[in-house]
């Protein structure tokens, strides 16, 4: 016990023995975010007071972010409502780092979306960059090669003075990290709304591909197996709240102010990816886990808890960037680009040789042990001795009270149907242009041009098409499509329906690209769970999403919950971002969102109802949010999906674009501008059939609708298929010539040259931010 060579000013080491002898020591549990009963529970579990290192571990692992203590009771539905049939496509599901979906031919795909909201507001560039880095490591930890990323960004009002600061940093951070990694960014979302002013949302999604036999799980089994920490060195970044502990308990000189943000190094991550993939191929890894939030505390306790239960760690073996770090800080550090592996002793030399080859630092820091304790020593002194399940998986679970807000009735009663509408052709024309140039519908090119969309050469579709499509198998052309969506205004008006509408739209986008939807990931961004109104939104959202997933047969494979997204008492709109992954046999059959061939006929699939509440039109032209969102129709969505996938497979459609924000008007604008090819459109038949006005036909946001362009030679086969299956369809136009005076012509109402349309649609973001 004399080998202590700690540097720095530490005078006491709070050992387990010392904790046993000093039960009355006052500990800063409240400053670390624990409640009194939680602290008492830790004492009961251990039969003594926790050491400061144990307190640090429990506090961070029992935080909302790591323990899901407020959301867990609701998230259970995602498992409970998943049927055996839905489960049959899953190789791994919720609880693992990410869900893994069988896509056929021995291939599997893993995908997940996560939030990095709060760090991105404090330090937009690094917050967004490390958000990308973190989700990529999650995917890597499943044994998969990351093949694409997407980002879902929500900012405050476009003209607010603080918005540009956040937008510049976040977009550059997403691009900087992803581009340096050499991963294509194939799409995402970009939304501006005042509700995100003080609390922007930065979600990041990653997709990875693997062979079935390469699947790796995060568990530590096999007594005597070694625990290896590899990648970047551990530094004092991202420690945040734990500095409270260090300063309050030990340091009389005052708080050391450890920064709560981390700086990422994408080049280190790129090397780590290649190193991991070679380790997997060599078969030298028994179990693996990435280090993200809660760092070593999380990795050690989760690996042990999911495995045999026993692990002994020698903390002084952790390679440090800063030799003055205290043991508590080493346990909490969120330094980026680190992984932890479980390796058999007879394979460790091979492991180390591969790590050396990639210039990745690796250190054996412990081993799997018999028994069910996680022990951590610091120079032979025992500072942690806990049952790992109590840290990682058996944290507190809250049944938070929830109640429908009293204001909800008034909100729903305030329908957009009462708003004044454009009537004449000229008024409609002006509205089309105004919407096309509004913040949420204008071209996103200024953002997506900063991302590398085609690196690796497997991207078949990316922004601005409906879904991102990447090839998985370069021989057969097998590939996947991913889309994410969420209209938070709908969720605000009715969270149950809003969640279903998010799924409905993402499902439709994937099918529109020509892929069969298979599985779901979600990132649930909400306000404070301590507000019963917010908790009601959350409960309704999870119920709605789980119910809808059951109907569509697409299981939730994993995701993330981000709570406390509010400024003062004002919560963000409930924002359940839903990602859908689909598979297609051959990505060369993908369907793009714009038409190209003059003379092709344009069909509108689906029925239009008078649904304007929560719509882009109501928001842009009247600043109005009220009423009830469009009716959910999952049956229609599923039928439409089948039609689109079959049409793509049989070559019946050349272009398809989904109708969502901005309705048919915006879909026509985008389909024309995609390749600068005009169209002549007539609405009389649809208006008569659905009993609606031209205005409603253009701007309603009813679900389960797309426009497609059909080659004349395939028209009969296409309409026969629609008729046979009962798909509502109407011929609404023809694709026009692509010459200079190409126009979008809506007969009898208005005509807009594409040059004018582009002038309205294209420049907003560029003019605002560059």
């Amino acid at each position: 016990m004399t080998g202590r060579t700690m540097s720095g000013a530490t005078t006491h080491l709070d050992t387990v023995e010392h904790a046993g002898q000093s039960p009355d020591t006052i500990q800063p549990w409240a400053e670390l975010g624990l409640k009194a009963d939680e602290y008492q529970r830790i004492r009961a579990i251990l039969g003594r007071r926790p050491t400061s290192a144990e307190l640090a571990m429990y506090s961070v692992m029992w935080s909302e972010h790591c323990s899901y203590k407020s959301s867990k009771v609701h998230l259970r539905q995602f498992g409970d409502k998943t049927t055996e049939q839905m489960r049959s496509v899953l190789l791994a599901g919720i609880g693992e780092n990410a869900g893994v979906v069988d896509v056929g031919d021995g291939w599997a795909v893993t995908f997940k979306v996560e939030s990095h909201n709060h760090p991105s507001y404090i330090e937009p560039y690094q917050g967004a960059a490390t958000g990308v880095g973190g989700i990529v490591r999650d995917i890597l930890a499943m044994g998969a090669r990351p093949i694409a990323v997407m980002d879902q960004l929500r900012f405050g009002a476009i003209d607010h003075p603080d918005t540009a600061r956040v937008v510049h940093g976040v977009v550059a951070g997403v691009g900087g990290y992803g581009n340096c990694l050499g991963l294509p960014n194939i799409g995402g979302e970009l939304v501006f709304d005042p509700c995100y002013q003080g609390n922007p949302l930065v979600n990041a999604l990653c997709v990875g591909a693997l062979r079935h036999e390469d699947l790796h799980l995060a568990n530590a089994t096999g007594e005597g197996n070694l625990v290896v920490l590899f990648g970047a060195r551990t530094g004092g970044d991202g420690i945040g709240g734990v500095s409270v502990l260090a300063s309050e308990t030990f340091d009389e000189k005052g708080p050391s102010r450890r920064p709560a943000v981390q700086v990422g190094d994408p080049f280190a991550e790129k090397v780590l990816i290649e190193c991991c993939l070679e380790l997997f191929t060599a078969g030298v890894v028994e179990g693996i886990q990435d280090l993200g939030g809660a760092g070593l505390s999380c990795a050690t306790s989760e690996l042990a808890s999911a495995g045999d239960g026993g692990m002994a760690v020698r903390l002084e073996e952790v390679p440090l960037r800063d030799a003055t770090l205290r043991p508590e800080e080493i346990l909490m550090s969120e330094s980026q680009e680190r992984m932890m592996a479980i390796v058999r002793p007879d394979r460790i030399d091979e492991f180390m040789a591969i790590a050396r080859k990639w210039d990745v630092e690796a250190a054996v820091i412990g081993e799997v042990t018999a028994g069910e304790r996680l022990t951590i020593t610091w120079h032979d002194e025992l500072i942690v001795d806990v049952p790992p399940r109590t840290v990682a998986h058996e944290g507190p679970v809250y049944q938070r009270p929830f109640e429908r807000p009293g204001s909800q009735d008034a909100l729903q009663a305030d329908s957009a149907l009462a708003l004044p509408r454009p009537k004449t052709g000229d008024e409609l024309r002006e509205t089309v242009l105004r919407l096309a140039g509004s913040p949420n519908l204008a071209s996103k090119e200024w953002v997506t041009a900063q991302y590398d969309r085609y690196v690796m050469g497997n991207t078949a579709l990316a922004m601005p098409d409906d879904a991102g499509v990447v090839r998985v198998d370069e021989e057969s052309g097998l590939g996947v499509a991913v889309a994410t969506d969420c209209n938070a205004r709908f969720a605000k008006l009715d969270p149950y329906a809003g969640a279903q509408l998010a799924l409905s739209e993402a499902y439709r986008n994937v099918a529109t690209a020509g892929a069969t939807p298979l599985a779901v990931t979600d990132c649930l961004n909400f306000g404070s769970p301590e507000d019963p109104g917010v908790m009601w939104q959350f409960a309704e959202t999870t119920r709605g999403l789980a119910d809808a997933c059951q109907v569509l047969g697409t299981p939730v494979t994993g995701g993330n919950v981000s709570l406390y997204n509010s400024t003062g008492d004002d919560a963000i709109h409930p924002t359940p971002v839903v990602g859908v992954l689909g598979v297609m046999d051959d990505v060369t059959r993908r369907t793009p969102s714009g038409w190209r061939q003059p003379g092709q006929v344009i069909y509108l699939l689906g029925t239009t109802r008078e649904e304007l509440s929560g719509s882009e039109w109501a928001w842009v032209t009247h600043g109005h949010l009220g009423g009830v969102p469009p009716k959910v129709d999952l049956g229609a969505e599923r039928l439409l999906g089948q039609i689109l996938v079959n049409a793509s497979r049989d070559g019946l459609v050349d272009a398809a674009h989904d109708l969502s924000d901005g309705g048919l008007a915006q879909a026509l604008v985008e389909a024309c501008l995609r390749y600068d090819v005009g169209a002549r459109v007539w609405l009389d038949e649809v208006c008569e059939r659905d009993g609606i006005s031209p205005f409603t036909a253009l701007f309603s946001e009813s679900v389960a609708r797309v426009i497609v362009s059909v080659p004349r030679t395939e028209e009969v086969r296409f309409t026969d298929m629609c008729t046979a299956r009962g798909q509502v369809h109407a011929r609404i136009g023809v694709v026009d010539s692509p010459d200079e005076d190409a126009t979008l012509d809506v007969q009898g109402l208005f005509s807009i040259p594409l040059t004018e349309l582009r002038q309205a649609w294209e420049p907003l973001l560029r003019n605002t931010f560059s």
Partner: protein
Amino acid sequence: MGRIVVDVMPKPEILDPQGKAVAGALARLGYDEFGAVRQGKRFELEVDGEVTPELLGRAREAAGLLLSNPVIEDVVNVSADESADESADDDAVVS
């Protein structure tokens, strides 16, 4: 004419990928006596006339507001550059 020098460094706890890359390159070139490298940045602000305490105060303010990102960087030095006058015609002077 006076000159104020502002030095900004990444906070000590924060990862410095540039410094790390430089340290690796130095070792590869045989300069293995330098264990670690951290890379910051230096600003030179020119002022009319002498550098006064007031001007230093203004520079300190600007350093906190614009020249550094206080979330991840520290301003480690704001001072008058004494060599400014002699070296006015020699930009290559190394301080």
